[in-house]
């Protein structure tokens, strides 16, 4: 008996095996053929293991630069990138993160229940975001409340379930007008859409009684054509991540000086070391994404199947790029704005002598900037697309630094990057810090959900 319990404990302590079980349940619920079930479970387990390897590679790529900055300037440099945050948490609390797949499953089920019986009919389907977010809730709950086991599972699942319902419902209020009721944004960048829509409404003199939405015309199409080589670059995430991270990480190195670089590089020539940093970072991301892709390809159809069956007519909340075709040129403008905003934020931190420096992680800039571009443009035209992006970039850095230091992620030398972390999550972290008790926090979550229902329910009433 003791041996059996031990085996169970060991399985429950391995994130990839727990993920395998979660996917198994999903596939059985869909009544898949036995061979498909076997294939799906294998892919989920292998996918998570690839993801772990990618995490190690990713950390190995940026850590030397951060250590260099620390040794030379005494500042803690932290890259605003979700996967670096997730990777660091996985390494820091390996026994606790094994609960993550279960949190994902229960969080999703709470989302389904809230959509089925509550007024906010949205279902969160972006599984890679769910994984990153569920991992973060485990870290936060453990950091602030020290909870483990069942308590950890309860508070994290509720946190996820409420967040995955409220944020998409909030973005739906803005996306409904131009994207219809077929989908809305399901990501941890919801605030990029909200902020940019508000800026758009301001710049476009939006009138609720006589709403006017901007459409991209021939002129934008032409402008897009003129930037053809630029958009081609942005259409390949491997290339754009590598080039920009080479600039960011290489720049960090050069600030520290040649001797410091040579020390970190060891036997490798310091120039080669600096040039290859961005590429090594990209290798980590590409490997990590290969694992994520393999894993979620099994999970998302199951989630979609469950939601179609239990909450027919709910608005699926999906990943950011689904929005870019609605205003492709605006998404590029938004990205350029966000890129500039991140550097504005970075130099503000530098100028104010902040002990923690947020280093633009590019991926969140790229994607959230695109979202800010689309939402800003729809309500306020081109200017709003750019300025929406700019504000989002600044918020990611300046809000992000508060989030990182308060959440304890700073102690790991990593953080998350999307706009929600510099805004809503920053506030929620402050609340967690203030309440200091796990059940008080659960009550706060209930209040947030209740408020959201009151404020947002009218957008879900069919005309």
């Amino acid at each position, binding site marked *: 008996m003791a041996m059996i319990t031990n085996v169970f404990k060991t399985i429950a302590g391995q994130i990839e095996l727990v993920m395998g079980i979660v996917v198994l349940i999903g596939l059985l619920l869909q009544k898949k053929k036995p061979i498909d079930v076997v294939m799906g479970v294998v892919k989920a387990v292998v996918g998570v293991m690839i993801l772990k390897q990618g995490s190690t590679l990713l950390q190995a790529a940026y850590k030397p630069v951060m250590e260099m900055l620390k040794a030379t300037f005494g500042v803690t440099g932290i890259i605003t990138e979700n996967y670096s945050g997730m990777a660091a948490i996985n390494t820091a609390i390996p026994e606790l993160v094994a609960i993550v797949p279960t949190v994902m499953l229960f969080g999703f089920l709470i989302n389904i229940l809230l959509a089925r019986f509550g007024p906010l009919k949205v279902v969160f*389907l*972006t*599984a*890679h*975001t769910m994984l990153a977010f569920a991992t973060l809730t485990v870290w936060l709950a453990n950091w602030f409340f020290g909870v483990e086991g069942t308590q950890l599972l309860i508070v994290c699942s509720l946190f996820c379930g409420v967040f995955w319902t409220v944020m998409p419902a909030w973005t739906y209020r803005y996306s409904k007008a131009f994207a219809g009721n*077929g*989908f809305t944004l399901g990501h941890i960048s919801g605030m990029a859409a909200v902020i940019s829509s508000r800026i758009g409404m301001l710049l476009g003199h939006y009138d609720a009684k006589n709403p006017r939405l901007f459409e991209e015309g021939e002129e934008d199409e032409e402008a*897009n054509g003129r930037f*053809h080589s630029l*958009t*081609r670059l*942005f*259409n*390949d*995430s*491997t*290339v754009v991540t590598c080039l920009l991270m080479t600039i960011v990480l290489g720049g960090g190195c050069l600030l520290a000086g040649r001797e410091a670089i040579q020390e970190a590089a060891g036997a490798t020539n310091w120039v080669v070391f600096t040039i290859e940093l961005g590429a090594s970072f990209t290798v980590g991301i590409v490997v990590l*994404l290969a694992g*994520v*892709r393999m894993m*979620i*390809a099994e999970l*998302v*159809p199951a989630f*979609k199947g469950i939601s179609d069956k239990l909450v027919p007519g709910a608005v*699926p909340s*999906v*990943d*950011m*790029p*689904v929005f*870019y*075709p*609605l205003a*492709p040129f605006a998404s590029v403008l938004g990205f350029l704005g966000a890129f500039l905003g991140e550097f504005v934020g970075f130099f503000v931190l530098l100028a104010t002598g902040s002990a923690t420096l947020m280093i633009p992680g590019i991926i969140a800039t790229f994607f959230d900037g695109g979202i800010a571009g689309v939402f800003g443009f729809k309500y306020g035209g081109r200017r709003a697309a750019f300025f929406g992006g700019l504000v989002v970039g600044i918020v990611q850095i300046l809000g992000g630094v508060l989030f990182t230091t308060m959440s304890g992620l700073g102690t790991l030398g990593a953080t998350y990057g999307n706009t929600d972390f510099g805004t809503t999550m920053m506030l929620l972290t402050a609340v967690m810090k203030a309440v200091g008790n796990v059940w008080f926090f659960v009550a706060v979550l209930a209040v947030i959900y209740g408020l959201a229902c009151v404020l947002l329910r009218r957008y879900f009433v069919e005309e």
Partner: protein
Amino acid sequence: MLKVYAVCVNGVGSSLLLKMTVEKAFRELGIEADVKHIDAGQFKGCRPDVCITTPALARTIGEREGMILITTTNFMDVKVLKGKISEALGRE
């Protein structure tokens, strides 16, 4: 069986959704298709019969001999995609 690829920038989230929509469209049209999803960078090495993506990415991918390129601006709309697929396949 048709070899079909759904393509997006990262090949993780949105192309997976597009893939699910495309699968449903083919199923409803009664056409047998093996649908995979991938990012635009890696798509270079793939040789499918049909590629479905956004207009912006289609410019990057470009027309290819022997490949049908279909573009959509709505990843979730099965009806629109069904029309586009049957139109594109009918022309061949």
